[in-house]
């Protein structure tokens, strides 16, 4: 690193930041938010508040009468959002928990042991980041295992898809955990399982947060794989959108679509808002190692 030795012109005592910059930054921040985010979100909210005929051609004007709560009610009822919400949860939570634990376990071993075989297995394990999952053959396989259309099958599919992501993240991070900590525990007579669950796993908190957010995002919003594995049998939020999306051939119920989208995104948003600090500090120590 050349930082400390970089040649810099001597300029005398460092200047203090000028006051105008102090105000400029928050203004810049707010402007960015309004421009980049305000306009699209305004469109969503405004369209969600319109009646069907007004919403046929979505635009930025406010509705003549606000139907927002009414539309929420319609999508909630017709889109069967309650079972869909629980369906999504039922699948997402075990999938995320499973892939994190199994992935972390594998990462630990892959990070600590060094041999050509291990390197090969590691390369294999993260190749899932690059390979596209093949939906039809996965379902055919599930059918033969008797898992087609079941929540367990869907959980397995998601775990398979995102295992590589977890291993990619966690392996790098495990190497930053000093071996001494493990040694100390082992000297005290702990079995490998104990060492892993009591010592390593807690320390993996930060990187696990990063992986959790990413995987939760993908699974919560996934339509494609859910459609073919469990479509028609288990309700999930993204799938049920299509119950209310259409007003006729080639016509969309934009007001209902956007109302549904607002409701569907709320759980993740609320979670992120509440856990924001934790998540950022998690990412801080997590992905960038």
């Amino acid at each position: 690193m050349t930082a400390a030795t970089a040649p810099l012109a001597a300029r005398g005592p460092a200047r203090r930041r000028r006051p105008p910059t102090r105000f400029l930054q928050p203004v810049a921040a707010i402007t960015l938010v309004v421009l980049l985010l305000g306009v699209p979100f305004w469109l969503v909210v405004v369209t969600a508040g319109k009646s069907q005929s007004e919403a046929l051609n979505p635009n930025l004007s406010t509705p003549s009468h606000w139907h927002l709560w009414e539309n929420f009610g319609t999508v909630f009822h017709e889109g069967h959002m309650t079972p869909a919400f629980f369906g999504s949860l039922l699948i997402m939570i075990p999938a995320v928990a499973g892939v994190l634990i199994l992935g972390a376990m594998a990462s630990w071993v892959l990070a600590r042991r060094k041999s050509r075989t291990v390197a090969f297995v590691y390369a294999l394990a993260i190749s899932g980041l690059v390979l596209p999952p093949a939906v039809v053959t996965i379902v055919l396989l599930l059918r033969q295992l008797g898992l087609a259309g079941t929540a367990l099958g869907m959980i397995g599919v998601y775990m398979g898809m995102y295992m590589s992501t977890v291993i990619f993240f966690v392996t790098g991070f495990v190497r930053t955990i000093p071996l001494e900590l493990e040694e100390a525990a082992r000297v005290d007579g702990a079995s490998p399982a104990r060492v892993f669950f009591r010592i390593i796993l807690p320390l993996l908190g930060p990187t696990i947060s990063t992986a959790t957010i990413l995987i939760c995002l993908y699974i919560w919003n996934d339509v494609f794989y859910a459609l073919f594995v469990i479509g028609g049998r288990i309700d999930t939020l993204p799938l049920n959108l299509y119950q209310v999306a259409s007003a006729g051939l080639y016509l969309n119920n934009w007001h209902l679509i956007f109302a549904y989208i607002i409701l569907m995104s709320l759980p993740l948003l609320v979670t992120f808002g509440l856990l924001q600090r934790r998540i950022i500090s998690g990412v801080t120590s997590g992905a960038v190692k």
Partner: protein
Amino acid sequence: MKITRSAVAAVAVAGALALAGCSDPGASDAGNGPSTSDWPAQDAKLDGTTLTIWAAQNSNKTADSVIQGFEKLTGATVKVVTIPDPYEQGVQTKVATGDKPDLAFWQPTASELTALNAKTNLQTLDGAPWLGNYTGNLKDITGLLDGKRYAALVTTPAVIGVYYNKEVFAKNGITSTPKSWDDLVALAKQLKAKGVTPFYEMGADKWATQWWVQAQLADAAKDGLWDKVNKNQEKFTDPTIQGAIDTYKGLIDDGLFNTDIKTATFADQGDALLGGKAAMAMQVNSFFNELQASASTAELDKKIGFFPISPSGNVGTFIPDQSNALVAFKTGDSKREAAARQFLSYWLGDGYQDFVDAQSTVSLLTGVDTPSSVPQALKDVAASIDSSVGSMQALAVANPDLYLNLSDMIQGTKTPAQVAKTTQDQFAQLAKAQGVAGF
């Protein structure tokens, strides 16, 4: 435990071998279905039976009234599952994975029935009690593949024709509708001279661009054009079809279409015709349904008219779509298969009057009246079916993306010759995959 290289390899090979023994995908567990000459009575009790119907986003509410009546009458439970658009792709893929419903909305044309592998996957509906009740020649024009019936038509098939704004015509002194293609073009030029946009096309939404080509092929279709194409004796690049594409491009180049043709959408087209900004649009029934979403029957009867058009006369080209018909699957469960047939019998039997009233659509069966709430234009469309000819979708063995290529032409990325060539190549590829002789 040591990780040896050979151990890893062994596991991998074992895994692969174990699954190599897997049978063919989507292998039909329904090879020998029950005899479909058995049509249960419409009101036979079905307590405890659950039927699943797959529907597209735009047809998932179509069956509601029928389901209500059927459930009350028989005690069965009927569930509608919405498959997101693009519907056909979703259904084909799910069927490929071995997932089958009891019934599904499906385009009743030969090419689409082939795409669903009807012979293996679908029940035949020959001998159904309601077949004799179809009006006109509806029974014979669609739903059939290789002489066997697989699809049940429930609403009047869409017809390609011209929707026009009556007030624009009247204001410009036009008192009669065109009687041939040349009449149509002459009329358009007349309107253009008076400063009116003659035709409106939705270049951005793409799917309607093909109607212009198909309408021009009506005469040839009657003469067996598609039979020849199906045997590879005639190609899209040959004069008949290429000529139609060239004519379409010529009309656009002559300025007879809206200036924003490249970016116009389906919604724009509806607005334009209803508002009188354009005089005519070549479209199918779904266009009219869009108009119905924002105008009353009375207004539509006053403003919008319909006439079919073909090179030498007023012959429409019919193109049944997914929401017009249902198919029944061979699921291997003979009880459910019979229940599915019973559901169709009810729909096209005791439940039909309620259905037609609830959907405000033209009746297909003799003895059931079309409700008065149906606009005149739709009635005209239904009336034109008897004399209409089949479209590419209805008569060709495969369904290439003609509309996509035409829309590329409108955007300027393909020439008419390229449109024909690309479409022919796609057609040949699909026909070859089906094992059609001659490809």
